[in-house]
């Protein structure tokens, strides 16, 4: 299979580079012009604007649908809040009333007629009548295919204390999903889901021309390029940002940001201006942020396709060190040409923070920003591909640098454990967090239907693990070819899973459905094990019988390596039956049996049972670690008895 893949690669087109024309740009059918004023005293944003929306479907549209995401944080009754509670985050509902936010539309007019009074909130997913995150606006005049409608908008947004990395804390404002955001029309009609705890966003591309007014002395970062600033207004300073071919617009403002700039330059890739907005206490970590951003732009650009925008803004958010009082996470989050990273004051250099989150969110510029898949339904397509890609970049750019870390003393002190090295296969692809929820979902289920408590592991981890499995099955060159081709084909579009799978088979020149059926369209768990090894004397040697068992429901072709002293045999099994007995004749005693010796199937949740040896060292290892534990326990006893 690997050989076939490599042979096929020789006839593939070369990967895109800066010397070639950039990929075709977006349809640009949802463009906004917005003027917004931030009032930090009341935590409100007053905004007006226009939306130019073109119907790019083949059906006439009789109503418009808008996402009002911030209404998820209006009170505890929204679907987002209810799902968070289901996932165990019940404390969110008990937050003070002042922490909540929301969005109120005053004007939603077409051709001078305000349609607000005709609009109604709908809950197409779960029927929750208290949910106000999707607004349906019936049109007096339907919009025909290809036709453009201009919508005048006026709204007030109350900025919440941080929810889902959005909102305010102190003088730090991160403002995302803050405007009435038009949904996406597909051939099946509106694809405008409610805001769910486990999902993010989906929107059409367009041009954003946004002017935000903030108090003097505040630093502003936003999607797009800063084209002008204007002082002299009583409300503060106006900052105007413009960006075409993006599907969202987020901005941030704070008087405390430290600003750094560097330029990304890499042979074969277009230069990118990098702007970093840091919290003052993280000033010493500027280089770590830039290095990680460079790594993402370089490796994603080289492997999949170049970053097409002129600039990228990295925002270091205020650290949430006490979620019980400060608010919910402010960590990493992606928006077009801008993302938040996240680090800590005490961030060991052996730790993956901030590098991992920075690479991940910068990587989302590719898997999300440029290839804009439907995050409501197929979140694995951006989060999963990106988790896999992040791990690969971390390994390539920071070889052998990372180790496990833990946080102590209220989370304020980070401590590295140099003996526990970071590995791409397990840590990068997040196997350990996936293991307990491996059978919770069929990944092909729309993401918004996932159990909120395990959605992350199914979306991020499982995808990364099966992509790494694919890489180990067909090789990196073939995997890269699939992803690069997919990137090129999906850039500035909304590719679907079906397209991805078809394209993967096309690139490989063989049908890969067997693979995707096993790893994606199923909730089966994979677990192969050595069940039994016996030997009997035979003429001239031994007959060794090796029984391999399929403990999990998942089926995957497996290689079994049997070693008899110096002789190694590789035996293949389709992995379908519940068990398989192999008979091996050899003159020497059997010494080792390894099921999946190269650990191709990274989704196997128990690898310890994959091997057998005639000279087990379990007792030695157990003694070693029991003694270590003994020392630790003695110290624990002494510590707790110190005051006795």
């Amino acid at each position: 299979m690997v050989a076939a893949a490599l042979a096929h690669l020789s006839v593939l087109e070369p990967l895109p580079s800066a010397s070639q024309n950039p990929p075709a740009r977006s349809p640009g059918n949802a463009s906004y012009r917005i003027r917004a004023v931030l009032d930090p005293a009341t935590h409100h944003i007053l905004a007006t604007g226009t939306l130019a929306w073109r119907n790019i479907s083949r059906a006439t549209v009789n109503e418009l649908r808008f996402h009002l995401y911030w209404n998820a944080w209006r009170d505890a009754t929204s679907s987002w809040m209810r799902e968070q509670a289901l996932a165990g985050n019940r404390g969110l509902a008990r937050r003070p009333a002042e922490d909540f936010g929301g969005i109120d539309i005053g004007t939603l007019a077409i051709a001078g007629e305000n349609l607000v009074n005709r609009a109604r909130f709908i809950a197409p997913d779960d029927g929750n009548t208290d949910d106000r995150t999707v607004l349906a606006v019936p049109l007096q005049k339907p919009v025909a295919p290809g036709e453009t409608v201009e919508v005048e908008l006026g709204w007030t947004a109350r900025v919440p204390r941080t929810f889902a990395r959005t909102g305010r804390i102190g003088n730090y404002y991160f403002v995302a999903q803050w405007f009435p955001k038009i949904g996406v029309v597909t051939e099946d009609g509106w694809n405008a889901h409610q805001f769910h705890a486990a999902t993010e966003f989906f929107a059409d591309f367009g041009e954003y021309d946004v002017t935000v007014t903030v108090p003097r002395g505040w630093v502003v970062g936003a999607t797009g390029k800063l084209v002008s600033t204007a002082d002299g207004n009583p409300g503060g300073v106006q900052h105007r940002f413009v960006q075409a071919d993006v599907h969202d617009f987020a901005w941030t403002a704070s008087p405390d940001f430290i600003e750094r700039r560097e330029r990304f330059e890499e042979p074969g890739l277009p230069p990118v201006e990098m702007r970093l907005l840091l919290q003052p206490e993280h000033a010493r970590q500027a280089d770590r942020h830039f290095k990680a951003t460079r790594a993402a732009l370089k490796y994603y650009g080289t492997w999949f396709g170049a970053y097409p925008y002129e600039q990228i803004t990295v925002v270091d958010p205020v650290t949430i060190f006490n979620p019980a009082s400060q608010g919910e996470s402010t960590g990493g989050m992606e928006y077009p040409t801008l993302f938040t990273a996240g680090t800590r004051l005490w961030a060991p250099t052996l730790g993956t923070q901030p590098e991992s989150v920075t690479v991940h969110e910068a990587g989302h510029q590719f898997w999300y920003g440029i290839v804009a898949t439907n995050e409501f339904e197929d979140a694995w397509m951006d989060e999963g591909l990106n988790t896999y890609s992040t791990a690969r970049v971390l390994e390539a750019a920071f070889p052998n640098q990372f180790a496990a870390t833990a946080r102590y003393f209220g989370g304020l002190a980070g401590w590295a454990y140099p003996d526990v090295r970071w590995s791409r296969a397990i840590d990068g692809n997040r196997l350990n967090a996936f293991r307990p929820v491996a059978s919770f979902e069929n990944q092909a289920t729309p993401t918004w239907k996932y159990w909120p408590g395990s959605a992350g592991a199914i979306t991020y981890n499982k995808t990364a693990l099966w992509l790494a499995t694919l890489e180990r099955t067909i090789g990196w060159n073939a995997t890269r070819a699939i992803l690069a081709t997919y990137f090129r084909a999906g850039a500035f579009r909304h590719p679907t899973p079906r397209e991805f799978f078809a394209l993967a088979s096309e690139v490989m020149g063989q049908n890969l459905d067997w693979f995707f059926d096993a790893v994606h369209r199923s909730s089966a768990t994979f677990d192969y094990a050595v069940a039994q090894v016996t030997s009997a004397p035979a003429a001239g040697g031994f007959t060794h019988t090796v029984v391999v068992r399929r403990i999990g429901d998942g089926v995957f072709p497996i290689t079994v390596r049997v070693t008899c002293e110096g002789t190694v045999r590789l035996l293949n099994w389709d992995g379908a039956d519940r068990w398989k007995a192999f008979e091996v004749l050899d003159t020497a005693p059997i010494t080792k049996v390894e099921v999946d010796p190269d650990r191709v199937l990274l989704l196997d949740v128990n690898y310890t049972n994959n091997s057998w040896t005639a000279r087990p060292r379990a007792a030695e290892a157990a003694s070693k670690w029991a003694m270590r534990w003994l020392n630790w326990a003695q110290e624990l006893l002494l510590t707790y008895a110190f005051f006795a």
Partner: protein
Amino acid sequence: MPSSPESSRTVPPGALRTPVLGAFLEGWRRVFAAPVVVVSVLAATFLFALPMAALLRGSIAAHLGSSLEADAAATGWNAGWAAEFEAQAKGLERTFTFEILGFGGTMATLSRFLDNESLNPTLVIAIGAYITLWVFLSGGILDRLARGRPVRTSAFFSACGTYFVRFLRLAVIVGSAYWWLFSWLHPFLFQTLYNRWTRDMTDERDALALRGALYLVFLVALGLVSLVADYAKVRAVVEDRRSMISALLASIRFIRRRFFRTTGLYLLNIFAVIVILRIWLSAAPSATAAPWLALLVAQVYLLVRLWAKLAFMASETVFFQGELAHAQYTAAPEPVWPDSPSAEGLDNLARRP
């Protein structure tokens, strides 16, 4: 109840001000001169943890079975296998994580203690039993350190027995104070105040300073209770007190009248522990160290820590004895059971020319 030397003012002039550093050094010297006690307590600690370690050893061996994963686990930390073990772990097995490694294990334990985090139930039981063991041994140890010379094993355990019930009564009172500190003061500091003061805090440096200050407040409270309890035990042994309430009150009086020196001595002892921890930070064996070498280094560290704890007790005893003119009574002759150190001391004083 015997009359307090402090209250009867029978202390000879010139012995009133015991140097803090002198008491500290003498405390270390006395423990150095009592190696059997230190090694025995270490051995007791070892044996106390050994059954739990044996259980864990069985679990690890069973999980690894005949797997080749044991090869990597035998030479270093096999993170992949350890995660699989952790995923199926139950009870005490859940404590087997990479947080037992090196100085990180020390950090983790200190952090959990100071943050009042819940512990594995088996460990809670073990800690409770171990503290009871300490309560039992404390009388004998203090008696031995107060005398400053070897005593027979039978005398040591007789002293343990003599003071065990008294110290249990003391433990109830002192334990109530600790319980109040952890159940009321700790939440007040680290939930009510910390949450209130960090709500709009955006700079982690401020949080670090605040939390550090709150730890200091909590440690001061913890230290004060511990200081009072320490001198109550010292007075109970040296003065053969039977009423633990009177011992506590006497301890408070003693500390109040010498507040800066008693707390200074306390801090000096704490500083010694910090120095030991700093050395452990550099010396803690890595996961790849040979098992027996790692065990040896760890036992040396624990021995020194135990030594520091006993020196803590000894220096406070020396200080008390020095302050109340009892420094001489621990000299020969060999005590004869059931004579208490107090009776022996009085006897010594009576024989003085």
